[in-house]
């Protein structure tokens, strides 16, 4: 403990550390404040838009139910409260889906399309501060732990004093972590309070468990880097070597591995480009009968007596409409499922590579807990598709059950529009988000255990003189 206090005090007295720490604190708080402001603004826009859209849907006046299906509905992606901490993939995902008859679309208007290209260089968020900048500070605190003492020749005298190597390791680890507490604790508290104040009191979106999980991931990640720093410091030839090795590890983890992991994932599971995806759907619809052929086919079945006797000949068109609608929905569902399956496989490959880079695992978990990863997006897309099916079923059933000879002049009003419930989407629980990314959780835990063992091994086997 004496070592820890001595190291921590030395670090605190170092002007450079104080500058770096103050900078990290300012960046963390700025990122938090900016993130929360941005997030609540977007959340407000989406909630307002969803309300306005509901009013438009209800007040659109009288029309034919099938025309209403063509009129369609917008579904806006609800913003997760914790996206203020880690916006994750949100800037790269569409913000709304237009649901209409006959066609199914991917969510449109990814914010990244409107942003200037420099946005691709990255955005300062609490998550990047915790996963990219904090490890760097940890590296600067640990690289000289043993290598520095060895370079100065104080390592052997220190052990000669009767300090056990285990106590030395514990002291050095604590000594590196203690100076961080005065920055991280206030930042966490400020963040927690801001988040609590700005989060909507939505009982459907419990964020306490998710927020605690995020904190746990960031702490575990910082501990992994502490262990890495101590191990490298114990084994390196000099403190300069230790610093270079650790900086290289940091650069690879933070900047090289994410794109490389994705390149590997795409090589393993290629996914179609936009034009190929659209063409695959078109190729199938090209082989389908056209409208007149469809109606003729149903008419033949009607003449064969397939339908009940009360069935009017004019209803043949409604049956054709319902059947084509069902075929279209199945077609789009199949293609979208295949696309999302490809993406899921790519995501899994990306996760697998986190064995090589703990920051990838932490990043995956961070996005999952914030509710801003691909799995959450898929869940939303599924909810939107389900809502579309529900809307079309409600409207089409009305046509089928109208019992009218000619359904095209069949006009309905607000009472029918009200039968389509408003769109409601609830994010899954923290436990669900975690089970989807169990691999990353295991990898992060394994890294933590691994670097702890490595640090102990490094300290017991280290040379005492340079």
């Amino acid at each position, binding site marked *: 403990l004496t070592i820890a206090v001595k190291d921590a005090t030395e670090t605190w007295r170092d002007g450079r550390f104080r500058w770096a720490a103050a900078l990290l604190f300012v*960046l963390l708080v700025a990122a938090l404040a900016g993130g929360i402001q941005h997030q609540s603004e977007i959340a407000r826009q989406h909630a307002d838009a969803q309300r306005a859209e509901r009013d438009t849907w209800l007040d659109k006046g009288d029309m034919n139910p099938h025309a209403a299906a063509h009129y369609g509905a917008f579904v806006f992606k609800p913003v997760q409260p914790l996206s203020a901490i880690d916006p994750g993939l949100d800037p790269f995902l569409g913000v709304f889906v237009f649901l209409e008859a006959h066609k199914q679309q991917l969510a449109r208007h990814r914010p990244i399309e409107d942003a200037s290209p420099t946005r691709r260089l990255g955005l300062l968020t609490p998550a990047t501060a915790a996963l990219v900048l904090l490890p760097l500070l940890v590296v600067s605190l640990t690289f000289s732990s043993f290598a520095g003492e060895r370079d100065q020749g104080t390592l052997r005298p220190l052990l000669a004093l009767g300090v056990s190597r285990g106590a030395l390791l514990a002291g050095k680890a604590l000594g590196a972590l203690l100076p961080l507490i005065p920055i991280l604790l206030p930042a966490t508290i400020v963040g927690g309070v801001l988040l609590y104040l700005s989060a909507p009191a939505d009982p459907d979106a419990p964020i306490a468990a998710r927020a605690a999980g995020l904190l746990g991931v960031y702490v575990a990640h910082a501990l992994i880097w502490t262990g890495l720093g101590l191990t490298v410091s114990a084994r390196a030839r000099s403190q300069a070597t230790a610093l270079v090795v650790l900086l290289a590890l940091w650069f690879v983890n933070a900047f090289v591995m994410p794109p490389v992991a994705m390149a590997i994932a795409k090589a393993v599971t290629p996914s179609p480009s936009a034009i190929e*995806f659209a063409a695959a759907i078109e190729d199938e619809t090209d082989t389908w009968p056209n409208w007149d052929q469809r109606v003729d086919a149903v008419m033949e079945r009607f003449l064969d007596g397939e339908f009940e006797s009360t069935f009017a000949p004019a209803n043949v068109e409604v049956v054709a409409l319902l059947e084509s609608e069902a075929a279209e929905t199945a077609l789009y569902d199949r293609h979208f499922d295949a696309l999302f399956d490809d993406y899921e496989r790519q*995501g899994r490959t990306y996760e697998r590579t986190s064995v090589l880079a703990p920051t990838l695992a932490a990043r995956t978990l961070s996005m999952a807990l914030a509710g801003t990863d691909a799995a959450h997006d898929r869940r939303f897309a599924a909810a939107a598709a389900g809502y579309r099916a529900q809307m079309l079923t409600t409207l089409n059933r009305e046509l089928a059950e109208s019992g009218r000879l000619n359904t095209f002049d069949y006009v309905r009003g607000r009472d029918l529009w009200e039968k389509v419930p408003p769109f409601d989407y609830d994010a899954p629980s923290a436990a669900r988000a975690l089970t989807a990314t169990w691999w990353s959780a295991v990898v992060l835990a394994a890294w933590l255990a691994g670097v702890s063992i490595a640090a102990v091994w490094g300290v017991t086997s280290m040379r005492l003189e340079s």
Partner: protein
Amino acid sequence: VIGFLARHEWRVLTASAVVRLVMVVLSSAVIAATLLGAGRAARDQQTYAAFTQRAAAQRSRPLSFGADVVANEKGWLAIVPPAPLAALAVGQSDVYPSYLKITARNLDSLVTGDQIEHPLALASGHFDPAFVVLFLYPLLIFAVSFDLTATERDRGTLRMVLAQPVRLRDVVAGKMIARGLLLAIPIVVMPPIIGRIPFGAEFGVWTIAVLAYGLIWHGLALIVNARGWSAPANALVLAGIWLMFAIVGPATINLLIAVRYPMPSRVEAAVQARAATQEATVQGSRQLGQFLQDHPTSANVGRDGMRQFALLQAARDRQVADRLERVEAAFDAQLERQRRLADWLSALSPTMVAQEVLLDAAGTSANRFEHFRAAASGFQREWQNYFEPRVLDAATLTGGELAAAPTFVYEREAAAAAVRRLAPSIAGMIVAAALLLWSGFRSYRRYEL
């Protein structure tokens, strides 16, 4: 004298283990990035070729000769080929459409085919030559130049060198030139050879931008060295500068932009568009419904009926499109304004300026997409002029008419236009580099031995 010193320094550098490691890292990064980029560009080129062929095949064997089916349902895919320098930077090509569906209708005439890719791939960025230039190159510049004179001074050998008839300024210049060439050669020469990049005006712009960007970082290294600190102190300060300029700076500026100049909301625009077109849509669908009520099945519509239906549809589309245009124009104007304001902020970071120039030179920036979109828009008018009368006439096309229909071939933006657009940014980078180098050499005058 400087030339002699530079040659000497070159021999010293190439014998150093650290420098060899740096060269291995740089070369393998450039090779890997170029191969990845070239693979991607080759795939895009294949897709382009395949779909251009497919369009020709569909034109010769259409599913139907009905004017409406040909002009609107099938339409024409305006496809943009990958840029000649696409292997150098993925840029925004993974976001913006590589094709637009063209129809003769006023509404949805340019249906976007936004590029689709795993969102994680967009968020992770790409390991392409542009990445190596923007992030790794500065880091390696610092790695070879954090110790220009510090160790030699501390050992006293610098004093001995200066006992010869050479000036300190020339010694430092020689060191800088050797280091500059050492890193610049692989980063400029390797990509075009490995990625088979055509040499042209665009590649010239790319090369000048890379060199100017490198000089900015060399200048920063020179200024820090001139302060007279020890080598480890230099290394630490330079690492901090790299972190601030290349990583934290852009990230913070992006946060500032997001908070201070948020892009107009697409969500609000969608609601506004909905409100603006509501009346026209509802009225139009009522008229169409009325028509369908009079003509319940297509069998008894007849050609006159089809004509009437096409007219009704076109009238509704025009009304909706007119109203939509106003909302969209307002949105685009606001987007443009916010982008200009944001541009001002990004001029503060050399990495951000260099990124914009590199992407534009590589042809994967928003500018090339805008150019493609404008070209596709012009083609859409041509398409509409050709087909609209035939659609309104509910005509069945003859083989000759079909063959004579317009086709879209993308013509690249003139290189001169791109050069003119990028000249201010590049000039700014060169001026910044010159200023940094000048002030570095100036402060070396007060270097204490």
